[in-house]
């Protein structure tokens, strides 16, 4: 089955990012295809490059980056959600004098069109986080 995922809540304060990540692991182990993970609302903070949790804690951002580098899962951060909350894409940051390295490796910034494409093209679309 082709599955797309939407994450609406920030990491650490909410369980959404953890539940979603475990769900994705189980889905892939079960032979399903994870087509895209779309980060929306406060979920965009899952892509904050400078997140540095203590060494004995799970590193949620790094875990996502590895999902992209190891398993090739497409990680998309909503551009308007991210701009509103201060995570800028490099070219935009350059233009407005913002921080150019806000987004962690493996994520890309794009519009809601990519969410729609994922919803339309997947057999299941599952949202995590209120």
């Amino acid at each position, binding site marked *: 089955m082709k599955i797309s995922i939407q994450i609406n809540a920030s990491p650490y304060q909410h369980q959404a990012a953890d539940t979603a990540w475990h769900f994705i692991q189980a889905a892939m182990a079960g032979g399903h295809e994870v087509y895209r993970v779309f980060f929306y*609302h406060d979920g965009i903070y899952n892509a904050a490059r400078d997140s540095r949790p203590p060494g004995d804690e799970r590193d949620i951002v790094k875990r996502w980056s590895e999902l992209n580098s190891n398993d090739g899962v497409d990680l998309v951060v909503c551009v*308007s959600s991210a701009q509103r909350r201060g995570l800028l894409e490099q070219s935009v940051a350059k233009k407005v004098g913002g921080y150019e390295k806000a987004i962690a490796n493996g994520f890309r910034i794009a519009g809601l069109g990519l*969410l*729609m*494409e994922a*919803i*339309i093209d997947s057999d299941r679309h599952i949202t995590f986080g*209120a």
Partner: protein
Amino acid sequence: MTQTAILPLALKMKTLFFIIDKALHGNVCAQEFLDIALMAAAFDQKVVLLFEADGVNALLKNQQAEALELKNITPILNALELYDIKEVLVEKESMQAWGLVERQLAIAVKVVSRCEIQRQINLADHSFSF
């Protein structure tokens, strides 16, 4: 719409059911949530919007979101028809719980029972809440 011409996958038409069950003003979530519904309509998907629980208050006339320095949602509600979103449902039981009648609402809606809503959600390809 021109967008669909370059996106052949958008020819697939799904029914997407959006549930608004929280007050619209106070944070940016509802606005971002409605953005998904509008984008879905722009992708020629069949969009059904449901207002229930606290969400029914969003439909009231004379909202003054400007007092909170927030965007007023009413113009978006008025624009739904332009986006070809014709199915705007309100749960009858929620209207009664809040003591509301249809003439107090800013736009034309279909008042439907909880039981009918359940039937319609079951018919949809995907349902969304925030």
